[in-house]
């Protein structure tokens, strides 16, 4: 047992589990759609061998709960727009983009976005870290890239201005209004991943979105580490703006901090938790909290970030200066 136990040691593992659980339906639902067609048509005897295998697997998974094909209709959709037992949820970016394109406020669509917006106002940009299906793939790619870097492969790690994504958001909204089409769905990775998974599995094949997503993965790998989420994502920009005055924040307890900088290293958004640099970009993912060896980073209910608190009280800079807070 450490002298300074970290009670939130497993928060990052928990987040990855939640991310994976949010990703599973995107793969499962398209298969259930195919199975639903087979089931409704009582078509087992007419299927070819591979379709019969799909039918058998799905029947094994759902046969005990679902007998009527209609029952599959209760949960449909992706993180872009989904329905649960008639209750509809949409991505705020979908609503913003659609409203710009249509220049008309549609009541039911606004209702469907109420809960996500409310959750973002309270919990901040949590969607990116805890639910976004593209983020899971980006983190996987980053995990591989990290191993490649350690093996000596020279991969790019350029830094760009993070405010660029607000420009992407503005340009996307203007393009939607000007072009009269929901342009955001073509450049927003979670929408692309959900849609393309459906296209790949349940319809003829992948669309242009797959190529675009591959390009963003290469951008992350070769140009800037986690570059798309940090610098370009229009949805991240919108969530950042909505979560600017969030109530739940990661905060640093200066008397427990030992200035080890692990939090700065691990932050997927290149923020500086060790220097109290959170701001509106923080997505409350908890990776810094989990990695902290002394438990000095905690979730707190607070309207604003605290001021910079200087070197941590367990660190060498603080001790050398005989306890004066600012070196």
């Amino acid at each position, binding site marked *: 047992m450490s002298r300074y136990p970290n009670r939130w040691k497993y928060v990052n593992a928990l987040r990855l589990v939640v991310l994976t659980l949010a990703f599973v339906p995107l793969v499962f639902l*398209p298969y259930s759609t195919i199975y639903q067609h087979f089931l409704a048509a009582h078509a087992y005897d007419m299927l070819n061998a591979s379709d019969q295998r799909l039918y058998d697997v799905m029947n094994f998974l759902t046969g005990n709960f679902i007998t009527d094909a209609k029952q599959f209709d209760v949960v449909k959709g992706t993180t872009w727009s989904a329905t649960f037992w008639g209750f509809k949820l949409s991505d705020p970016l979908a609503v913003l*983009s659609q409203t710009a394109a249509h220049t008309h406020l*549609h009541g039911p669509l606004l209702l469907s976005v109420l809960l996500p917006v409310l959750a973002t106002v309270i919990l901040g940009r949590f969607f990116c870290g805890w639910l976004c299906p593209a983020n899971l793939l980006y983190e996987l790619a980053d995990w591989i890239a990290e191993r490649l870097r350690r093996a000596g492969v020279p991969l790019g790690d350029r830094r760009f201005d993070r405010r660029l994504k607000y420009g992407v958001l503005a340009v996307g909204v203007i393009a939607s209004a000007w072009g*009269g089409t929901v342009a955001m769905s073509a450049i927003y990775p979670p929408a692309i991943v959900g849609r393309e998974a459906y*296209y790949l599995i349940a319809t003829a094949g992948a669309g242009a*979105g797959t190529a675009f997503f591959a390009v963003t993965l290469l951008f992350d790998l070769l140009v800037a580490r986690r570059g798309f989420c940090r610098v370009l994502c229009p949805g991240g920009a919108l969530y950042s703006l909505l979560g600017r005055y969030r109530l739940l924040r990661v905060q640093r307890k200066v008397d427990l901090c030992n200035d080890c900088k692990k939090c700065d290293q691990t932050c997927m958004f290149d923020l500086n938790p060790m220097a109290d640099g959170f701001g509106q970009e923080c997505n409350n993912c908890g990776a810094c909290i989990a990695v902290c060896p002394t438990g000095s980073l905690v979730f707190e209910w607070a309207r604003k970030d605290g001021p910079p608190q200087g070197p941590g009280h367990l660190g060498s800079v603080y001790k050398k200066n005989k306890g004066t807070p600012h070196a």
Partner: protein
Amino acid sequence: MLRRRFLQALAAAGAAGAPYGFARLLAPAAQGADTPFITHLRPPGAITNDAAFTEACTGCALCGEVCPVGAIKFYGREGGSKVNTPYINPRDRACTLCEECMKICPTDALTHVPREKVTMGYAQIDRSACYPWVDKGVCGACATICPLGEKAIGFAFANVYRPVIRDGCVGCGLCVQICPHPSLPIRVVDRSLGRQANPEV
């Protein structure tokens, strides 16, 4: 000499071509051959103005997921600004007017209307190709499959197998899917044509 040979050849060609020309003049015109039939219908309940529909559709693909027959497909890059918006090709798999897509659409791109009020298009029958219309064949597949029944499609008075489109047709395209004729004499055309789609001959 050369000129005479040339004029002779011209006259011969004209004489040889004349029967074909007369035959073309006298032959019954393929009805609706100049009206383009639609292979990319919007799903039922879609906003009639296609630009407005593209604006309203977020490309979430929910309509395709709930479609019980898998009729709804999505434009790829070839669609330009229509990319990721839904379409139905009745020659491939047609809409059954089950209303599920209209119920699930999160925007007003697909508005829920009863199946009789849907305005996808208008069916048109080419009487120069349809089996019963051409040679008293026995078919009636289109009238049997129609989800709206007597209101949308019926039979001509003189022959119980010759189909005629009635005013209740909404253009779902099920008849196009079921038609056994290889050249598909029944097709869905633009809704704005109205009764012009099937002038009584």
